[in-house]
């Protein structure tokens, strides 16, 4: 498909996300298209994106950024449509194909800052994703404060409720940021049966309540966010987003989600990279020359074509192994490579 646009020159202008691996500084990415009217939210006061240095995670995830096409053209279109429509992306595909990486790619290229990552396990609940409240901690703190307060009306303020409330990744993503945050909901298919329903509800509303704060006499509360060391102010216990976050939901594709969720999301199935992409990935991660890694690429490709489940990580590991110093090109080394490139589905 790439060739089809090759003649026309630059990719279509409607795209904001081009998957080229550029790195935009936080808040200074390309201007995002206006959301449709029905996806505009009135949360406030508007706050800027937190400028956090998240380079290391992104590096680890993406390799050193180069001008490389890492996604297929039609895949990029789907991502852009999702950005345009402010709909969540539901990303499926074989293990290791880069489903989670997509979120980092988007955040980096659009300059949206740190990716909020919400890893799902079977015990994950919606409220955990929104915020957690340490009631005991607060109670104990108040008790301690009271005990201390006996001696001196030291004027030390009573522990405030906000100090014991931490927003989760979803809760943080829905804060009224000026520009959308990128939220990665990782492996949603591991979740409890009820979660998709609950999640959908919150995402449709773009808002949630923190009853603990609503009950509080204080109209304002400063709470922790999911970003390390950051705090934000919540008014009257209600959080509503301003720019709807870019939500990337990944799934290993075997669990079926309820229809309402599926129809609210744009489906994106990533397939294993083509050879061209493999080369790009390998060279963006490692500096080995192509000659060294070609046999590995051949072997990997053949295995993929023979069926079976293989992840790009395996390839990277193998390449790393081969290109690292002291690799023996003998049977022992071959065995090691074999081991690294084994079929994951066979579970040995």
């Amino acid at each position, binding site marked *: 498909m790439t060739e089809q646009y090759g003649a026309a020159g630059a990719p279509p202008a409607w795209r904001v996300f081009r998957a080229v691996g550029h790195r935009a500084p936080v808040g200074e990415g390309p201007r995002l298209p206006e959301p449709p009217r029905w996806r505009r939210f009135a949360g406030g006061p508007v706050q800027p994106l937190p400028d956090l240095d998240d380079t290391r995670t992104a590096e680890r995830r993406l390799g050193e950024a180069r001008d490389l096409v890492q996604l297929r053209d039609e895949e990029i279109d789907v991502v852009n449509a999702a950005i345009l429509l402010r*709909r969540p992306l539901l990303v499926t595909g074989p293990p290791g194909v880069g489903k989670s990486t997509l979120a980092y790619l988007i955040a980096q290229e659009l300059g949206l800052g740190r990716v909020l990552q919400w890893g799902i396990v079977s015990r994950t609940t919606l*409220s955990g994703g929104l915020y957690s409240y340490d009631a*005991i901690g607060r109670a104990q703190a108040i*008790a301690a404060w009271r005990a201390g307060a006996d001696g001196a009306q030291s004027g030390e303020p009573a522990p405030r409720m906000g100090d014991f409330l931490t927003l989760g990744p979803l809760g943080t993503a829905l804060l009224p940021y000026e520009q959308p945050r990128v939220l990665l909901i990782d492996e949603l298919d591991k979740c409890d049966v*009820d979660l998709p329903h609950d999640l959908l509800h919150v995402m449709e509303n773009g808002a949630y309540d923190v009853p603990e704060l609503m009950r509080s006499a204080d109209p304002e509360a400063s709470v922790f966010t999911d970003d390390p060391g950051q705090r934000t102010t919540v008014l009257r216990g209600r959080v509503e987003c301003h720019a709807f976050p870019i939500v990337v939901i990944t799934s290993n594709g075997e669990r079926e989600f309820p229809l309402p969720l599926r129809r609210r999301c744009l489906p994106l199935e990533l397939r294993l990279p083509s050879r061209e992409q493999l080369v790009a990935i390998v060279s963006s991660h490692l500096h080995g020359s192509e000659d060294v890694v070609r046999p590995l690429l051949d072997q990997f490709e053949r295995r993929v074509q023979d*069926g079976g489940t293989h992840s790009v990580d395996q390839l990277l590991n193998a390449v790393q192994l081969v290109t690292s110093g002291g690799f023996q090109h003998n049977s022992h080394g071959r065995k090691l490579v074999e081991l690294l490139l084994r079929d994951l589905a066979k579970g040995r």
Partner: protein
Amino acid sequence: MTGLPRERAPDPSGSGEATGVDDGAPDWRDLADSAWLAAAWLASGRHGLPEPQQAEADHPDAPVEHRPPPAPDPQARPDTPSSRPPLSPSAPLPRGADEESHDLGMPLFHHASEGPGAEPVFRLPPLPAPAGPRPLRLARALRALGRRVPSRTAHRLDEERTAEHGLSDGLWIPYLRPERQPTFDLVLLVDDTLTMRVWRGTVRRIADEATQSGAFRDVRTVRVSVTAAGPAVLRWQDGRTGDPRELFDGSGRRIFLVVTDGLGAGWAADGADHLLTGLARGGPTALVHLLPPYLRHRSSLYPFRAQLGAAGFGRANRELTCGPAHPLAEPLPAPDDGAVPVPVLSAHPASFTAWADLVTGEPGVRHTLPVVLAGTLAKGAPAPGLRTPRIDGPHAAAAVVARFLGLASPLARHLALLLAVIPLDFDLIEELRERAVPEAGPDHVAEVMMGGLIDWDHDGAGHPEFADGVRESLLATGNRSQLAHAVDLLADLHTGRGAAAPLRAAVRDPERTVLPDTASPDRPWLRIELAVLRALSGPHARRAARIMAGISGGTPVTRVGGPGAKSDIRGLHGEGLVPDSTTEPGDDVPPTARPETTEHTDAGKADTTMDLKAPEHRFVRSGQPKIMGNVPPKNPNFTGREILLEAVEEQLRQKETAAVLPHALHGMGGVGKSQIAIEYVYRHSTEYNVIWWVPSERESLILASLAELAGRLGLNTGPQANTAVPAVQEALRSGKPYENWLLIFDNAEDIDAVRSYFPSGGPGKIIVTSRNRDWERVATPLSVDVFEREESIALLQRRAPDLSSEDAFRLAKALGDLPLAIEQAGAWHAATGMPVAEHLELLARRRLEILDLDPNPDYPVPVAAAWNLSLDRLAEDHPAARQLLEICSLMAPEPIPLNLLRGGRNVEISPELDPVLRDPVLLARATRELSKFSLIRLDHKRGTLQMHRLMQNVLATGLDEAAEARMRKAAHQLLATAKPGEGASPELWPTYQALLPHVQASGAVRSSDPWVRDFIYDVVYFLYYWGAHETSMSMAREAWTAWQAQSGDDDILVIRMAKFLALMLRKFGSPEEAMRLNETALERSRAGHVPDEELIGSMWQMAIAQRYRGDFDEARALDEEAVAMARRLFGPDDPETLHAAHSLGISLRCCGAFPEARAIDEETARQFDLLYGPTNGLTLNSLNGLAIDVRESGDYRGAHILQESTYETYVSNFGPDNAATIKAARELAVCRRRAGAVAEARELTEDTLVRFTERYGTEYGETLATQMNAVVDRRIGGDLARSRELGEKNVARYRAVFGENHASTLSSLVNLAATLRAQGEVDAAERHDVEAVEQFTATVGERHPFTLTARLGRANDHYARLGFAAARAVDEAVLPLLTEVAGPEHPLTLACTANLALDLRGLGETAQADQLQADAVEGLTRVLGAEHPWRMAAQVHQRIEFDIAPLPL
């Protein structure tokens, strides 16, 4: 988040209709989103976008011209959306699509010159997609199990409580509350047998989906090996072994799913029983049978269908109720013998849903599922397909393969051919299947695995391999190109790369390719190469020879084909491959290596199928599940008899019937005839589609068995024996729906009776076992003699393994090698361990005692002696068991339902036995005791016990008269307490059928016990309803005679039985005798002290008899008396009153008083409706009568409407084949005719006639009445010849049955006369009419409508002869009578008027004629409608003919 699974209401707040209706249709936002996206798209100036595969273009004329490809899925389809990739042309194109990759026809040697290593000609089609696992979609089904309960281990903070307490006490101690968790965890026990590796993917998916369902706390998979010997062993992931009991969980919150293909022999052994009973005790347990249902009968685990009822949330299996799947299914095993039902699931959502429903459902939830009974599995037969085939003759391998091919599905056959070229490595197999035959599933691989082709322990180290010669034979079933294709596929396989490449090279160029290194460790590949080369023959065979030469170290023998090649190949085949051993020439010539095929080297003949004709290709299975019924359980101790079994096989191969008879010297039996038949059945069960065991000692048993078969064959006959049995015979004869059946008529003593039930001809086989040597006359006999001495010894040692051969020899000799005696002695020895010397001495003493009694020469002295030992021991140790045995000996030798004994808790027999009958535990111990000594045979599956007929003889000889009377009485009491309920309900018939032989054998008919008599009364009623009329009548007569002799005529049960007998006699033959019985019954009822309802019953039953005699007025008087009495005593709405009133309705009708009858019947029907509801048989019967009343009163159209609705109700509630339904059909036909729908009437009449004739024959009362209607309908339809033929017969039969002057006879006569008249034989018609008028006038009076109708016939006679004046005289005389009796608006009156007009017209009195005609036409139009034939006839000056419809008596 409470975590409670709940029914989610559609999200009320946010998205309104978006989530409210998830029907997949786009809502406003989907459309808005699309538009928004399109706008952005267009604004960016994108044009000419090729629409890759999005061309579904749901809105072709939508304003958005270029629908953006990624705006996909507003119409997300519920099944695929999230997984559907945005397709694009850059998806990998099939590599080598232009490389003729599928050109199977390409000559093999095309590229031979290119030498080895050339670019392959054939390429694999690439994988269609990353072949993801096919989802089983079980997760949703399993989710139903995910109910949550408070956890015992996981807790979470109870914030409210903590806060409350913290504020009050300031201690801030956290309070916890249990987390809510899924109730269950799941343990998947995966069978560990070799064949299960085929199913790895499926098993993994089951585990995955269970995990993904989120319904379980935990899902663990553990392998379990179930072997034929010893208990089941767990195999943990880390290699540890364990005991399944490690898995049990005291809380009962663990669900066990045992996943298996059921092929391991262990599933038919104790280990499996223990495993499953243990698990089922621990928690809800089910088996997942991976084989598809149609293959299961070939596995060791063959479930039967049963209806399981839930016992409440998470209850263990033993609490499930287990009943037959439908009323006529085989009876199920009794639940309390320790057997636990275990549902058998398929890896299919529906199956899992039903099971989840059972586990979580409240009592009342029922599902029909396949079930096995844990605890009885050991009685099953291990899968035959896993036995290593015996390759013992030249054609054995070919025969093995032919057998496989006969059974296998086409895909499995295809796969087998491919598998023949690869080593039996499961990874390879899986890959080959996915690539080469993607449409095949693991079940097809399993078919190959269970096809009896494989030697599962080929090298002694547990590695499977095709049995010797099987590869060659399989390869021989394909043709060259298939073979070459297979080799090419193989060389392209990922897993096989390397090893298979040389093979391909060798196939391409057999001459020049380097010979394989015979010393290499790749032994399997070498074997395959040889097989392939041999299959290809020609130069390939020579290469094979060279390789073999290399292996055996010798020099290559012959290089050219021709005669020499034969010995060459012979010597090198098969086991000779093992180079370490001496090269021993196998004695089998592989069929492919025939010398003549070596000529076929040219490419032109490359596609000739290598001819292999299966030597015994006698059957082709359709893959349908077979029907197998009533076969006694397999005898686990069956020994020897191979020659006889082969003889049976041979006989059946050549002839249709095999008769297994005892040798002339052993007339009493006990030589094991039935055992041979049973063993044959189990050994050959896979060769037949239907196997049915027909106990044939009594005719009623044959009827019951065949009627049951009718149900199982799916014949739509209803359960009545008299319709079902002919249907079965026809179905078997025609081979539809199943050909290839086997019937076993066991103990068929009455040759002629049994043979009458043989399906004549037909594509099936019959085995007869009998003591009657006269079978020799009609079938080639197979004589069963006593055991060979070796067989005796083998059986003895099998039962008692510690017996030395000499001891066994002495014992066998003393017992005369009689199989029954040998088995008895073996059981004795196993149970007692008595030293043989002592045993022999005891036996000898017994023998003398028996001979002292001077028994008849056929008396089986040796077995009697052996039995007597056991019986004596029993009498000492366990007198109750002994008495139980004696009771059973007085029953029939057919299986005795254990339920019969269980019902005995209210009877008093003896101080020893009573407690046993009252306590199920003691009872089970007693039956076990008997079984231990091999005195009875328990069939747990069917819940019966059975004893040998010889045993009954021996026991009977041992009983003195008093003891026998006592035991007989006990037997009768047990039978009476087992009484199932009313005999009219079809669902109880199977129970009655099971009891029937015992009722007959025990002589319960002659019992004087009122309870037993009451039971007998029910039995005869059952027989009547079931359709066994002969048996019913003879039993009723026997009972009545016996009871009358014992208790005299005044006994109420005698009177009741007399009335029943009268009913049967009236219906089937002898109305006079019935009359006498009714008279006596009425007389005794009036005189004796019988309850009033009995008297009333006697009265109206007498009235029936009188009606049969033709005394309608007397009957009416009697009925009136009965009704009056009943009304006085019981009130107008008592059933007894209504029965009498119904009878009165009939009497009134017979007297011609239709309006009165109508009034009575309306009231009766209304009361019945109130009492029993509108669909009850009694209500409907009254309505049926009411329709006749309405009709004969003149409202033809009203009657028609009423009867159509009554008939419809009959059909939907009783089925179209029920006798009552057919009767209603007969009346409906008359109603139709009278209402003018003559064609429909005739059709229905003919149909009814066929049904009654088939069912009861031509002499039966109901058939006669239908014939009478058919005479009329045929006349109206113009088929005069057949009308007359039937009419003459009908008159004759009526005369014979009812007498000359009975109203029915006369009606028949009138109808015949009308036909004769139509044929122009006016004289004959007149004769009949004159007689009819005369007799009618004499018997029912001149004002009876029938008399008047007959006179109208007379007028028609005159008119036909142009005697207008005479006709006018008759018509003018009849008309006022009709007007008076039937009313001026009655169609008969009007028709008479019309006819009179014709008379007058003939006489020239036109004016009066016109007037009368106008009146008649006008009246007929009013009451019958303008279309009615009578009205039309009146209009066009045609004579109207009349008929009389028969009235029910």
